């Protein structure tokens, strides 16, 4: 191991620990005088399982961010496809090598980069579009709302995975940016429904009537009274949505229509090993485990956030 790679691993560990400790401490410090977000963090902090999941996600994100400095080999280089292919896990290759003599561990690190950033950006897109659309429908109500929601109903009547497969197959070789856009734009319908329902309830609240009675404009009301109060359900939905997008992207890449080789994603890495899974099991196993662990972690965090952001649900 070169000294610069050791330094990168140390840095990665230190950053992960520091970030997690900081989040924990921010939650632990939050007293009754803290704002609503800090208090939610404090409640989240008491959820041990969710905190473990948070550590895992932070670690995965750090690895993804620092992949080029952490990976012992190039993810795409094929040094010797005769001698070095399908090597089992060893000291030189923690997770073995695949059919093209590429180091599975290095590909896994780069794959984290690809899979996580696609999921994150796609979710940011869906959450933003969904929130704006849902807020507009809920706030203006009446006929506007009816038309906007019928459009959503129509969109939701097409299974998302079918829609994606059709789009991607017709498209041919999609660049990653296009994949993000496609994933993002097929994922916001649920969020918009959620936000609309929340906004419909919020705008009947006394606080909105009071704000209007004090001369607030529509814009002030949406920005100050409606949106901050729908942030929590959107955050929860987005966290659970990330898990979903990771799975969908993995599925599409596995089918060969998502992230295209040689660029590694966890999904197409599984595909690389699937034909010889009985003998060369390590090629598919490790990316598979990575998907399971990350998806579970995001789901656990989502549930933890739901409880932390809406303590009323705990009463039920």
């Amino acid at each position, binding site marked *: 191991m070169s000294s610069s790679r050791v330094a990168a691993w140390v840095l990665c560990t230190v950053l992960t620990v520091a970030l997690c400790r900081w989040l924990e401490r921010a939650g632990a410090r939050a007293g009754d005088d803290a704002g609503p977000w800090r208090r939610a963090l404090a409640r989240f902090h008491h959820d041990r399982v969710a905190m473990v999941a948070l550590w895992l996600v932070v670690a995965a994100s750090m690895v993804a961010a620092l992949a080029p400095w952490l990976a012992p080999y190039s993810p795409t280089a094929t040094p010797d496809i005769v001698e070095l292919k399908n090597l089992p896990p060893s000291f030189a290759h923690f997770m073995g090598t695949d059919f093209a003599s590429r180091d599975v561990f290095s590909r896994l690190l780069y794959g984290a980069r690809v899979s996580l950033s696609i999921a994150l950006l796609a979710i940011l897109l869906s959450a933003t579009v969904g929130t704006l659309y849902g807020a507009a429908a809920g706030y203006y109500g009446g006929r506007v709302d009816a038309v906007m929601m019928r459009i959503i109903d129509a969109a939701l009547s097409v299974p998302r995975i079918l829609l994606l497969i059709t789009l991607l197959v017709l498209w041919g070789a999609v660049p990653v940016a296009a994949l993000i856009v496609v994933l993002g734009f097929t994922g916001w319908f649920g969020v918009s429904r959620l936000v609309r329902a929340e906004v419909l309830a919020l705008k009947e609240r006394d606080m909105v*009537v009071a*704000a209007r009675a004090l*001369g607030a404009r529509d814009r002030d009301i949406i920005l100050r009274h409606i949106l901050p109060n729908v942030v929590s359900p959107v955050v929860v939905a987005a966290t659970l949505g990330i898990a979903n997008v990771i799975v969908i992207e993995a599925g599409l890449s596995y089918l060969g229509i998502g992230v295209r080789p040689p660029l590694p994603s966890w999904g197409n890495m599984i595909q690389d090993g699937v034909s010889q899974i009985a003998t060369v099991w390590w090629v598919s196993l490790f990316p598979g485990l990575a998907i399971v662990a990350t998806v579970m972690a995001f789901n656990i965090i989502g549930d933890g956030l739901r409880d932390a952001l809406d303590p009323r649900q705990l009463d039920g």
Partner: protein
Amino acid sequence: MTAPLLSVRDLRTWFHTPSGVARAVDGVSFDVMPHETVGVVGESGCGKSVTSLSILRLIDRPGVIEPGSRIEFEGRDLMTLPEREMRAIRGNRISMIFQEPMTSLNPVFTVGDQVAEVARVHSSASKREAWERAVEMLSTVGMPAAAERAKEYPHQLSGGLRQRVMIAMALMMGPALLIADEPTTALDVTIQAQILELLAEMQERIGMSILLITHDLGVIAESATRVLVMYAGQVVEEAPVSRLFAAPHHPYTEGLLAAMPRVGAERERLAVIPGSVPPPTHWPSGCRFHDRCPFAWERCAAEPPPLYQIGEKHVSRCHLADEPERRAKPHEPLAATRA
């Protein structure tokens, strides 16, 4: 004689619902003079709150302020004002406070921030200036340690303090008219008295008028100079407060006064008005109170009574003004026999 600050004429706010037209407010007229406190009393559903929201033009579909309704404020016709100018009046010249100070405040901002926001909406005050004015206002309305407590969130304050925050928001710009919709209903009795005292004090200081909406005649007796009694979307009686308590004319007003618990009246059962307010889609014919009235006769079911002049500044929407001898013969009201 000075001109009224607010003049409402034939206000009709109807809700066009699938199950019919709900005439929640149906021909209400009244004036509010400068520096005066006018009380509005009535049961739930009589149209008090819709009246106050109509004045600020905060009625949403399916509610409509029907054409022909007139609301004049400081000599301006609020019905024809563009929305932009209407917004400049809300919270600035006319303010409103509500029953539930918890749900009226935004849980995600500090109270100081929310008071400051009013100043920022209605003036070009910088963020810092607005904050300073907010702290000053909070201390004026009796918030202890205002500079520190301004940084707190609504959930950290007691009900009484939250209502003080609402009052600070409403009075920030020194309005000419404050509409207080059940301002003390959600509060403990001791806090109620403090809030009423605060409102009176602020009225003195700012020189504003107050339209005090409540179902609590005790609150009216304490604060108002003149009272409107509303029933089924109409004003049924209007009188100076002392006169209303001493010599109520409308049987509904009598019923309300009789239903008030009194200290000293020993173990007597509280009087009740039989029946309940009818649904606003189906007001009774003639006098809208006739099915609950102990004096009603044929005329009441057939002919809607006008507002009769009873005395100086005292009007009543009751045919008894025309045929006072009927008062001698009370009977079981229709609603009681039906029940």
